[in-house]
């Protein structure tokens, strides 16, 4: 495995912002706005486990990767879905990542994800446009949990948590039984109809090992998707993590995800 210096990781994330002169100020402004919103919206905590479990490993590996999704920034363009499909040859009708649109109005909750937002979102049907309380697009993917039910139920050990946090599939060992697909509360996994094996988001392990970012992070126009090393205190994900305004999906499942959402409306499941 090639050595990735932690400062390299920082540069990878910040690099695309480095040409923006006010990046740091804007970042703090966003953080403040996000904090205010999140504080108002936050109903339940992200889980029973202490935060230190994620960010202060003692004898852990050199890198402890994490992913941040900033819902305040996502525009639902679908670049990420298209890039992931291309990078990982994801078959049609199946998704390693997808984006959902939530529209909360006075009558209830409208959610859609046309082809996983592969082609973005069409204009919202007029029916649902009245009295919108909040509307956001929410990217979804494998949460690379710390306590993954998918790994627990695999009968042969074909899926596992790699030392740096990635939950991966061993496609030379998977029998395609589908138990992991059932066990995932986030519907992140599927049986690849071409390969007949389990498949899911890998945080582009093959890219990160070469010092690159996951494809979805690379193409996001808004920096709504962030990937970084919690061991690097200067990385954006570390700072966001420390600011503690994040939430995780389905915390009651006790899966301890490492995808942290900022600005997530309470209706998001």
């Amino acid at each position: 495995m090639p050595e990735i210096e932690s400062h390299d990781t920082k540069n990878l994330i910040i690099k695309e912002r480095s040409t923006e002169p006010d990046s740091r100020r804007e970042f703090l402004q966003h953080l403040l706005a996000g904090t205010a919103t999140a504080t108002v919206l936050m109903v339940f905590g992200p889980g029973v486990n202490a935060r230190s479990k994620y960010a202060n490993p003692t004898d852990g590996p050199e890198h402890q990767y994490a992913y941040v999704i900033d819902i305040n920034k996502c525009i639902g363009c679908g670049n990420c879905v298209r890039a992931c499909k291309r990078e990982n040859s994801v078959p049609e009708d199946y998704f390693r990542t997808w984006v959902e649109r939530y529209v909360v109005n006075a009558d209830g909750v409208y959610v859609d994800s046309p082809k996983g937002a592969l082609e973005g979102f069409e204009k919202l049907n007029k029916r649902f446009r009245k009295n919108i309380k909040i509307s956001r697009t929410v990217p979804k993917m494998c949460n690379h949990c710390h306590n993954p039910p998918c790994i627990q139920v695999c009968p042969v050990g074909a899926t596992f948590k790699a030392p740096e946090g990635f939950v991966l599939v061993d496609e030379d060992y998977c029998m395609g039984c589908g138990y992991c697909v059932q066990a995932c509360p986030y519907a992140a996994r599927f049986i690849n109809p071409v390969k007949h094996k389990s498949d899911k988001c890998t945080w582009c392990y093959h890219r990160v090992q070469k010092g690159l970012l996951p494809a979805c992070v690379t193409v996001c126009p808004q920096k709504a998707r962030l990937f970084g090393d919690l061991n690097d205190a200067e990385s954006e994900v570390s700072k966001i993590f420390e600011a503690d305004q994040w939430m995780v999906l389905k915390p009651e499942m006790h899966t301890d995800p490492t995808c942290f959402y900022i600005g997530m409306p309470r209706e998001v499941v």
Partner: protein
Amino acid sequence: MEQLGLPGDALVNYIFPNNAHVTWSIMIVIYPYITGLVAGAFVLSSMYHVFGVKEFKPIANFALVAAFSFGLFAAVPLLFHLGQPQRFYQIYMTPHTTSAMSIFGYVYSSYLVLLMIEIWVIYRKVFIEKANEATGRMRNFWWVLCLGITTYNPESAKFDKQFAKFLAGIGIPWACLLHGYVGFVFGSVKAVAWWATPLQPFIFLSSAIVSGVAMMFMMYSFIMWRRGQGYDYVMVKKFIITLWMAFILDYALEVLEITFVSYEQGAHWAVIKPLLLGPLYESYVLGQMGFLSLGPLLVLGIASLLDIKDKSLLYLGNLGSLMLVLQVLVMRFNVVVGGQLISKSERGFVDYEFEFFAKEGLLTATTIFIMPFVTYYIISRFIPIFEGKSIDTEPKRLH
């Protein structure tokens, strides 16, 4: 919106994109069904071999051979389901013991071996006779089955009987494990609201016994009818009472499950209620819990409680058994497929369509399901199952 019958205040039916495909389909419905028949038939057989229920002596070996016939094909649906069936052996090589499913390979194989040894020990005398009578290749076949010992020592009978009893004895918890673990595989999945309950292993096991006993009843009736022999009405009556009581227990557990989850009004009920009132209404409310349960309770209750001793027993028994055999099949479908109809989005339900010609379709399922009956028939051409030539079976004819 309430009128749409959608959970989570959903205004439209929303399912997670990856939920659209139902991963565990017909093959995973019939797999526990077949292992259930194995467990049920075996328990029936052990009622004589272990607990000495005399009335069941005439069918004890029949049930054992039937259990074996079904057992041979129990894993076949799984092989059709696996994306990489040629990697099946990995479950023996690196079983991941945090997973309930990992024990399948060992439990299933050892159980089949147990069945084979028990049949062998019971039918040894027949094998030896056949080995001495036969010529040519058939003689070799019987010789192998005798493990090369072609002289029967009558003193071995008591050891054989003891060993058979021992095997039947440990076979009961083993059959319970073989089928109970399936219930556990489902019941332990917290991500699927309709599956997740600690009652699942018990529901699966009790319905397995019901399905096995009911299937044995119908097979017995059919075989005896074809042979033109009479029926053992004393045994038949006890058969029906056993089935009725087993089903009362099973139905009580199923009613308990739904009562509990609806009473709890928790996160599970929020998605289960619209499931049962919506996509699963016909198969669960009307079918499994309604007609296919109340019917047998009534019919078998009449047959058990009233003083009926003649052919009516068979009509009532078979009617009840048929309904139960269907009830358990529908229950497996409702659990396996029904659970996957609830999207993990908690805001919608998945469309399910039956496939007929696909690898995991109805045609494959039907073919696999017919095989145990064919196998039983073939075995019955080789060894006497109802003729009483094994160590201790003599049918009573009371007509």
